[in-house]
């Protein structure tokens, strides 16, 4: 298969979307927390928890949708816990994020062990998978139809979340309060905004998105839970959010760049290039882009 054939292949397009979906959902979650001034370093742990909750609940109830709901609730609960640790106990925000990641990595292993007796994988459970969506009419359009239709329902959800979150941040009172708290919590408090409440809501929303991203991993990307299956995606999502400059559309653009890099890494392996070096690409790209952008910002000190 030649390089050009791979790029124009609908399967490549589908791979980009598959890789993109969890990263985009997670990065949007980090975006909301970041704009409220409570940067969510615990995203990796929230995703992991969501991935396990989705598998367990969908296996017990037989419903993928109930699994997804459980994943979202679990992520939101961790977000609430993190908000309590930071604003209730006065713990450091970054340390709270690291603690969430550590607790989730151990806690999901324990949870899987007590639910199935296995510490490594949930292969024995008959867990659900989120359905793919065949778009009526669209799928019949020649050329574009097969590209756009037939992807996982959470992929469409992730893409739909971009304009929704962009509108929420820019045009709603809630979004305005989030931004006010993030820019200057003291000034926000003087005009009667409860900083703690807004940060709690932002972290809960962030956690819900994290849970959803995790559910996609264990109920869409693959159909099982494995120990530490997020494999650093929560950290790439952090890099994506920072590259996206704090806007939903910027985050989408950064996600597409990283997803294409990762897809290239996956497809280039078929040419016999070393697998490990290809796997480096999605991690090197954000370092290069971030450095270039901050270096340019430094050259023009007017900035944002």
């Amino acid at each position, binding site marked *: 298969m030649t390089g050009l054939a791979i790029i124009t292949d609908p399967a490549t397009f589908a791979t980009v979307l598959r890789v993109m979906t969890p990263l985009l959902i997670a990065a949007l979650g980090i975006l909301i927390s970041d704009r409220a001034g409570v940067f969510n370093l615990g995203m990796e742990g929230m995703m992991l928890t969501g991935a396990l909750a989705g598998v367990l609940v969908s296996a017990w109830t037989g419903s993928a949708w109930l699994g997804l709901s459980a994943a979202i609730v679990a992520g939101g609960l961790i977000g609430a816990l993190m908000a309590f640790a930071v604003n209730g106990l006065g713990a450091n925000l970054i340390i709270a994020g690291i603690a*969430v990641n550590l607790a989730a990595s151990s*806690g999901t292993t324990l949870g899987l062990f007590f639910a199935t007796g296995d510490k490594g994988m949930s292969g024995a459970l008959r867990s659900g998978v989120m359905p793919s969506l065949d778009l009526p009419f669209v799928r019949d359009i020649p050329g574009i139809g097969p590209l756009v239709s037939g992807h996982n329902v959470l992929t469409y959800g992730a893409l739909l979340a971009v304009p929704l979150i962009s509108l929420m941040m820019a045009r709603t009172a809630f979004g305005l309060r989030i931004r006010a708290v993030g820019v200057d919590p003291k000034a926000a408090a003087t005009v009667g905004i409860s900083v703690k409440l807004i940060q709690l809501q932002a972290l809960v929303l962030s956690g819900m998105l994290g849970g959803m991203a995790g559910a996609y991993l264990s109920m869409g990307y693959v159909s099982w839970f494995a120990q530490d299956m997020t494999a650093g995606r929560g950290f790439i999502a952090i890099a994506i959010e920072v590259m996206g400059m704090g806007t939903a559309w910027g985050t989408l653009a950064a996600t597409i760049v990283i997803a294409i890099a990762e897809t290239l890494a996956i497809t280039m392996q078929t040419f016999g290039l070393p697998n490990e070096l290809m796997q*480096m690409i999605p991690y090197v790209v954000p*370092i290069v882009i971030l450095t270039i952008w901050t270096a340019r910002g430094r050259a023009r000190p007017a900035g944002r």
Partner: protein
Amino acid sequence: MNRALLAGLVRLAITLAVIAAVILAVLIPFALPHDQPGAVVAAFLLGPLSSVRHLGNVAEYATPIAFTGLAATVVFRSGLFNLGIESGVFLGGLAATAAALLLPSFGPFTPLVAIIVGAVVGSISCVIPGELRLRWDAPEMVTSLVLNFAILYAGVFFLNYYLRDPAAGSLMSYRIPADARLDRLLSGTRLNSGAIVALAACLTVGIWLYFTRSGLNLRIVGQGPAFAAHLGLPSRRIIMQAQLVGGLIAGMAGAIQVLGLYPRFSWTQLPGLGWTGIIIAILARENPFYVVPAALFLGYLQVGGDFLARDIGIPSEVVGLVTAAIMLAVTASAIFQHPAVLRLIRRIRRVEAAQ
């Protein structure tokens, strides 16, 4: 009695009480469904103290995380939140293995050469994010976070193409030659001479940080960058120096871990010792002298977790939950800055002053 010391003791007592409460709070839900809840708690808390061999296991676990805790302390003291230590450990272990396998033997100095190579190569992981930050303002927390994974895959590539033993079942290096391995100190454990190096390193860095001019400069730069600039300190150079020292210690941690414990290098994931180092630095309040007890304490928890797994059948991952809860509790200003605590400390100082 010195009043500052007494006030410090009050804080220490509160810290210990908080840690004890957290351990019990996490452990009790796991103990209650068990036939003998008391036995579960006893296995966890008393098991590690039950014999010299188990105390040796505690020190064995404490060795690498004392190094990474020290590395995190130095790096954080410079004011940068550089997370490169995690991959520094990986890289240090890999480079030390490569040195042991590819370089000729240096007789009794073979381990020393391998550790130096590991430390120098491992320091790259902390130096790059520091350099990107100082030169181009790239946020070091984010770049170091993703750089960890880039270094991991580069390292696995090197392992696969240059060090891999094709006769071994899975991806691992050739057997590390015996003269490169570190001496074992206690039979029945994997406690090795690296533990002594770790102790010496903590004392050395403590003396550097608190009793030398260059250490004082680093503390000033980290705590008050504006004040440091006002004093005319070369802040950039001092910060880079701290990244380099932190990275060297992280690389050393990996080198000593691999040469002291394993017959072959077989890490294909990040070992997680860097994250544990951050926890140690926090527990030790970023003081090198406290790194040793903090590392021994986490080693004690880990051995307690092994007892739970072996005797009770509860996975040792419980330790991760305990550690995460302790992390939050000991940094909670709601406890340590509580008005009652501050009043108590003030009263002690006043009584002392009146005498």
